[in-house]
């Protein structure tokens, strides 16, 4: 059967658990579908594409988060994510059903999967979007307006710009979307939807790659949920200075974050990276210590309620979004903050 005007979401799951970003996108797709339905009058369907093995139970969760229909490919060869078998199913279904929009979470697997599918479908794909909207696009040269396109909004060119990308002529309009930027919708267990089982047809070449072993790192870092994030960048010169970040984070009940420069320099593990290629955070307090503030980093933290920036360079871009600007060396300023907080907590204890 065909499902015209549908918005698809790739539901990524690992060991039977759906990635947060897939549910965030299901919620966003619901919003976009309602907006499109209201604009053109035609009903728009939200479709979750679930692949895996023994994953039937996930369909209800996807529907509860906003999907009207779940396409379910349940097969032993899909038990672990692998590019070719997953892409095979998605490409075949997209060719047959012609979705309008296809959204994929900007996870490592999502960013492995989406370009493979887009290349086969020869459709446009925008990477790592931070926002999605619906709007009209006029091409003066053609004297033509394309209505109700997906505006794919992302930071671009490493530097200070935000680009709105459209795919006027190809379908589906594909985008990967950064984790944590769309709000997670509340589950509505009473929602109803259709579940349609797919029968995957693989080719022998789809199994050219085997996963021999997997090692999941159970990260103790929970940047996304943390109310306070204390991050260091290139201006944190030594391991001792990085230890100061940990002290401060502990005092404030927060996590340690880092810019890409600090991660690349080997100061701290990649799971601590904040920014476009790391985690997007929205804490109540973000301390940027020795981080100049490239847009890739800012894009991952500029929604923080309060930002303290510490930098020796008074022109550091980070100062432009900071609420508190401290021009100085991290190695001197952090101990001051730590000392002040320690004294405060001791004062508190005395008065209690």
């Amino acid at each position, binding site marked *: 059967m065909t499902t015209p005007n549908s918005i698809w979401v790739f539901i990524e799951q690992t060991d039977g658990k759906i990635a947060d970003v897939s549910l965030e996108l299901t919620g966003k797709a619901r919003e976009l579908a309602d907006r499109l339905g209201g604009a053109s009058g035609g009903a728009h369907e939200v479709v979750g594409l679930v692949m895996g093995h023994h994953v039937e139970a996930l369909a209800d969760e996807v529907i509860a988060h906003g999907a009207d229909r779940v396409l379910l490919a349940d097969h032993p060869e899909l038990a672990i994510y692998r590019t070719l078998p997953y892409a095979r199913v998605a490409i075949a279904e997209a060719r047959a059903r012609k979705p309008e929009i296809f959204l994929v979470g900007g996870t490592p697997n999502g960013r*492995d999967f989406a370009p493979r599918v887009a290349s086969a479908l020869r459709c446009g794909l*925008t990477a790592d979007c931070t926002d999605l909207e619906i709007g009209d696009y006029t091409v003066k040269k053609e004297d033509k307006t394309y209505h109700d396109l997906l505006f794919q909004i992302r*930071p671009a*060119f490493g530097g200070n710009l935000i680009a709105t990308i459209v795919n006027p002529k*190809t379908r589906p309009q594909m985008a990967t979307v950064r984790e944590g930027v769309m709000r997670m919708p509340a589950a509505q267990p009473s929602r109803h939807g259709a579940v349609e089982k797919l029968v995957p047809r693989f080719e022998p070449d789809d199994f050219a790659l085997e*996963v021999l072993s997997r090692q999941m790192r159970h990260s103790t870092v929970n940047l996304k949920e943390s109310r306070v994030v204390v991050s260091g960048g290139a201006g944190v010169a030594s391991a001792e200075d990085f230890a100061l970040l940990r002290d401060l984070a502990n005092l404030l009940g927060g996590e340690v974050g880092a810019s890409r420069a600090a991660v690349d320099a080997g100061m701290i593990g990649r799971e601590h990276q904040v920014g476009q290629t790391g985690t997007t955070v929205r804490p109540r307090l973000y301390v940027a210590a020795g981080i*100049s503030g*490239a847009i890739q980093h800012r894009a991952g933290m500029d929604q923080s309620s309060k930002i303290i920036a510490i930098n020796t360079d008074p022109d550091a871009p980070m100062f432009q*979004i900071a609420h508190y*600007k401290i021009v100085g060396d991290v190695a001197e300023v952090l101990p001051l903050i730590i000392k002040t907080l320690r004294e405060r907590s001791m004062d508190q204890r005395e008065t209690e």
Partner: protein
Amino acid sequence: MTDQRPIHSVVLVKQVPDTHNITGEVMTKDGTMNRNALPAIFNPEDLNALEMALQIKGRLGGTVTVITMGPPKAAGVLREALFRGADRVILLTDRKFAGADTLATSYVLKCAVEKAGPFDLVFCGRQAIDGDTAQVGPQLAEKLGIPQITYAETFVEVSADQIVAERALDSGSEIVRCKLPCLLTVVGSANTPRPASVRRRIERKLAAAPAEFAAVRARWPEFASDEQLQDYLNAHDLNIAVWTADDIGASEDQVGLAGSPTQVHKINFVVLESTESKTVPATPEGIAAMIQELVHEYIVG
């Protein structure tokens, strides 16, 4: 692993503006960027990709061909590749390629890789720092009809018909075995790229593409004409081959702007502004006052 043989690799590289070193000088007050203040560099993860290909060649023999698409000045990264040990370099340059998005780029690279000859492994950096899309590698693999290993960090072994590699993922790691030919995208943590060799730099300093002949002859006046220089480069294997859309048999509707389904609707310069911003002196009093405010607003407590 039993049967080993020489491995022929193709490495796709890109010359990019050095967006990672954005300083106050590069950014202007209205939030635009002074692009001229950014030097053009070898995309960092492409150096990791080249290094992995060179290590495999070092172990098993074979060849390393390096290809880039870009303006004529992108020949700079190809020379860098020659200095590091590439056997052969190819510059894809044509006005028709301009304005390509990742899909059109992957199509051009596909045409070039196929024209360059039989290969076992194709390497790309995970992503380029000017776009951070990480799309071209997988898009190219699909167009070549070969499997892909993204986020490759280590190659465990390469044999006549397969490669075992470790992938670095946010959530952990994975060891995979894949039939050849296949494409790998390589992460920055994979290795430490070798520097250019001094010997090779001296031997191959004249390596040039035809568009650079005038500049080369200005520095080395002993070449009386372009033809003479060309003969010398041919004789010493120092040609930077230049291929156009016609050379690689690319169809016009799939390259450049015409072949790019994505279009830029608008660009907003980010004018950074915090709603209220205070300069805090780096003194005990200044810090104490700041913390007092944060406590008052229940940010800290």
